[in-house]
């Protein structure tokens, strides 16, 4: 068996060496882009109205990562995103996204390189990027169908799990879309934290299947696993967690468009189930480290219908539940107060063009026992290079 692996490995080493030789001798490759690099800017702003103060938002029984607030009361500038990307040379593609929150310091959201020349379905990526786990995780906020992410993502993945590391993806040479991937990450962001194991303590694996059914239907389904290690992970400013979170995600997306022509009418169904098993020591604000072991889970399902060009409506339901970690955690963040958080949302948006959108959304949010009625009005516009979006 080892001999086969070695023969495959040596083949790739050979390919890589040949590639470098080719690069040295070949003239510069033609880029398909009219602009090199392509630069785009996402502008977005919101008006929010909440029946409960959003600054004291929490989800009963769940420690939350950074930027987990549901929004800001009144007018506020959302996140402005500057993206620059291009083929670096015939072997590499590079992408960079700077996220600038309206009221905070800018941060590097994505900065990665990705191989383009290995072939045989293999793609390598390195740098900082959103993990390929789940369906929603990899998608940038401006491509979401709602203003906010699903509750299970907010509660279990700190909205979106992105970190520094490497990723390998392999696509099978079959008509059915079969993609497998694995990642090895630093472990600095929620649900990981502190760069455990000298900055290499977190890993993930995922498999995606997909295809078409006739000319009007297409789908993608996935299974993902994330093992995240945390050392003194801060949540809610006063709590700390040291231990492991093992997260399992199942996702399904089904899209419909008459004859595959999405321009006039189309429908998208999307559902995901997330389960997180946490084991370690939890230190609630002001108390001492206490052994903690609990499993949390959640799911959401949503449907988005474009009923005529430029107009879409959507509904979504989110639900969460968690084990009771014991009386020792009463009156701490982990105290679920006998409540299973849930939320229902409706949304309508209008696209003036492919590049500009205005959205109205209502959430009946029961993240905590008392209902919070949340209203949002949002614009999201992109200028610069024409975007290409993931399925």
């Amino acid at each position, binding site marked *: *068996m080892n001999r*086969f*692996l070695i*023969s*495959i490995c040596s*083949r790739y080493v050979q390919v890589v060496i040949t590639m470098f030789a080719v690069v040295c001798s070949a003239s510069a*490759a*033609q*880029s*398909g882009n*009219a602009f090199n690099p392509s630069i785009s800017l996402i502008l977005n702003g919101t008006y929010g109205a909440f029946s409960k103060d959003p600054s004291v938002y929490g989800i009963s029984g769940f420690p939350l990562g950074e930027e987990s607030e549901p929004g800001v009361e009144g007018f506020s500038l959302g996140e402005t995103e500057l993206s620059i990307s291009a*083929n670096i040379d*015939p072997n590499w*593609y590079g992408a960079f996204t700077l996220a600038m929150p309206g009221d905070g310091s800018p941060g590097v959201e994505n900065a990665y390189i*990705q191989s*383009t*020349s*290995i*072939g*045989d*379905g*293999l*793609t390598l990526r390195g740098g900082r990027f959103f993990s390929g786990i789940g369906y929603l995780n990899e998608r940038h906020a401006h491509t979401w169908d709602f203003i906010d992410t699903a509750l299970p993502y907010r509660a279990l993945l700190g909205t979106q799990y992105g970190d520094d590391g490497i990723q390998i*993806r*392999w*696509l*099978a*040479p*079959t*008509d*059915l*879309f*079969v*993609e497998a991937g694995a990642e090895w990450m630093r472990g600095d962001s929620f649900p990981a934290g502190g760069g455990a194991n000298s900055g290499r303590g977190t890993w993930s694996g995922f498999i995606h*299947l*997909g*295809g*078409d059914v006739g*000319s009007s239907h*297409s*789908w993608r389904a996935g299974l993902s696993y994330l093992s995240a290690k945390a050392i003194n992970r801060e949540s809610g400013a006063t709590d700390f967690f040291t231990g492991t979170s093992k997260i399992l995600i199942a996702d399904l997306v089904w*899209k419909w*468009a008459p*004859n*595959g*022509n*999405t*321009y*006039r009418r189309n429908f998208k169904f999307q559902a995901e189930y997330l389960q997180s098993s946490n084991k370690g020591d939890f230190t609630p604000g002001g108390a001492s480290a206490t052994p903690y072991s609990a499993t949390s889970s959640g799911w959401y399902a949503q449907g988005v219908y474009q009923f005529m*060009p*430029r107009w879409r409506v959507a509904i979504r339901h989110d639900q969460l539940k968690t084990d009771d970690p014991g009386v020792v955690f009463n009156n701490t963040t982990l105290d679920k107060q006998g409540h299973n958080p849930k939320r229902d949302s409706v949304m309508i948006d209008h696209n003036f*063009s*492919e*590049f500009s959108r205005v959205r109205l959304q209502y959430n009946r949010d029961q993240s905590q026992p008392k209902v919070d009625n949340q209203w949002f009005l949002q614009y999201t516009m992109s200028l610069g290079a*024409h*975007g*290409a*979006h*993931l*399925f």
Partner: protein
Amino acid sequence: MKEFMKNIVMLLAIMAMHPVSANVNVFACEPEWGALAKELGGSRVSVYLATTAFQDPHHIQARPSLIAKLRRADLLICTGAELEIGWLPILLRQAGNNRVQPGQPGNFMATKHVTLLDKLTSVDRSQGDVHASGNPHIQTDPRKIAKVAKALTATLAKIDTTHSVEYDRLYRDFDKRWQAAISRWEKDAAPLKGVKVVVHHKSWVYMMKWLGIKVVASLEAKPGVPPGAGHLSQILSQLRTEPAQMIIRAAYQEGRPDRWLSERTKIPVVVLPFTVGGTDQASDLFGLYDSTITNLLKGRQ
């Protein structure tokens, strides 16, 4: 178990190293390029069509099925000039296929081999969804197809050198039939010269120039912006003073605004295939133009 794993690894190694089919696997972004590849590659090519005549090539989703197909392609044939900018980059980045990346022989963009109309010196989206490099809808002029055919033959010969003689023979045969057909279409379409038409999108600039047809109005106020009520009534009053002889629409485009205008002006709507497969008659490249000219002549009466 060990034996089973060994077999799996062997199978993966074989799949990775040997393409399943000896043919050139062609991934055609639009049906016209798939049809051209069949004409020029004959039995040496297997063609997969990424889109149909009933889909708007500007708005295709980067579906998993397309990524899976591009994974095994030896040759990617697209229009280029940013027509596929909303979906092709995703396919290229996710397919893990080095043969079809930009700069490789397997990455063939048809618009690179012809001179484009409507090139812009300044691009500003206040003009709508315009393409900086020019109007990409070159398949509406058969003389452009002839130029692309020549370039595509060279590409096929480069990718599959062992059959280059056969590609050359197929090209010469195709070009002979094609040039004869162009003469026939030009003769048939002579009565269309100077005819005034209303179009839906700026899809036909090359055909209009070829046949001398005059576009007096476009239902899209700006490219890519769906026809609005205000703009439609403006066209309506314009047509009352300056009538047109037909309203032209591609098979994939929405028929409602055309019917609205047609009912009020009594100007007939003519549906054109736009690409191979758009009408029953347009079953191949020759049928595409046969059908287009037949429908236009019918609309003129």
